């Protein structure tokens, strides 16, 4: 009888991946592909490249599991950071930027799937939503533009016609406030890195 993977920690699953256990990667995919893909898709607004990024992230985890260090945060954080960085690379390439603009105009924005119901923790998503809504609007806007629009802080400053130092502060303060609020809301150390 094969051992169940559902109750194993993410770190244990990564160790199993390092031993070429494909079922472990599948469990990691089941747990985290929704948020990884959702993040890539939110930035790219196009399913095909978002899936390419998602596939690249999970294949990379398979090939290089040692890149994940549990001492440096949760697996979800690791995968999201990888996905975000890769997606930003994609977005900042000129050809990709043109493709994105074309697709923005051509692709309807309505949702076709409800990934939250299947993949992510609904309570966590709701809590994050509430906490984000409580942020000062200017801090929330700066974070949105940087994280979800792929802008550098300089581009955000130019876009909002604000000093660069102001934008740096808004991003840093906003993230710190979110961290504090999420910790108060009961997220574990691994989930907010406290």
């Amino acid at each position, binding site marked *: 009888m094969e051992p169940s993977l559902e109750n194993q920690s993410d770190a244990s699953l990564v160790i199993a991946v390092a031993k070429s256990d494909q079922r472990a990667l599948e469990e990691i995919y089941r747990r985290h*592909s929704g948020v990884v893909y*959702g993040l890539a898709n939110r930035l790219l607004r196009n399913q095909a490249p978002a*899936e390419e990024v998602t596939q690249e992230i999970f294949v990379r985890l398979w090939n290089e599991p040692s890149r994940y260090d549990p001492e440096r945060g949760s697996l979800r*954080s690791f995968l999201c950071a990888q996905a975000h960085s890769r997606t930003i690379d994609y977005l900042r390439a000129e050809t990709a930027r043109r493709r994105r603009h074309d697709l923005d105009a051509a692709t309807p924005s309505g949702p076709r799937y409800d990934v*939250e119901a299947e993949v992510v923790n609904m309570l966590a998503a709701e809590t994050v939503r509430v906490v984000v809504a409580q942020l000062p609007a200017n801090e929330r806007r700066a974070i949105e533009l940087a994280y979800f629009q792929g802008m550098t802080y300089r581009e955000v400053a130019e876009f909002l016609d604000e000093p660069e*130092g102001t934008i740096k502060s808004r991003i840093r303060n906003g993230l710190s406030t979110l961290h504090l609020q999420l910790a108060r809301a009961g997220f574990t150390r691994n989930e907010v890195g406290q």
Partner: protein
Amino acid sequence: MTHDEVRSLLGAYALDAVDPREQEEIARHVELCPSCLEQVIQHREVAALLALDADLDAPLREPSDALWASIATSIAAPDVAVVLPLQRHARRRQFVKPTYSVLGAVAAALLLVVVGLGTYNHHLSSQVHNLQTNSLSYQLESALAQPTHQTVLMRSPKGVQKASAVITKTGTAYFVDHGLAATGHNKTYQLWAISNGQVISLGVLGSHPTLVSFKVESTMSTLMVNVEPLGGVASPTTPVLAQGAIVNVA
């Protein structure tokens, strides 16, 4: 950049919202500064949670059902899992057992390679030891253990070794970095081969490759690597940084 200057940028850094030059500088600082590292970890945990929030921008969507199947296929065929060949016809070609019509020249070249392999294999084995937690390194170790494997030393035009390739008799090969600097944003290393007198792409290697698998065919005589725009190109557009000759082995 001072500690305070880095500190002020850690939020933007955690969101990939700094320039490439700043990113490199901050990354170096963070590796040496525990308090900044902790701050980055915290910011990235928050950023990952933000991805759960469906109201910030576009709604979340789920990946297609076929995505996992595609990933499973990729990891089940590790020799093509990392390098993504740009020329479809090249991927379909089957590896053909080498011929020996130019045995004399091959033997001379092989002798040169063999002279350096004794100490070099020891160096490669040491590298493999450091990478044993990932499956690709195990595959490389297995390849090195095969007596028929071939090691191609890839040198810069000035003769400095930049990378190597370990090739098995089945054509499965492994690219091993020996000092290629990370490319900047929007750039990637790309691997090329000369095959039947033509330069063909073997795929992109990423911005900072360490160990990448790819496929070699009997018609290929030289491996080359250069830097190209992210995503790769069909034909080389920049000078070759390192190259090495493939010698058929029995």
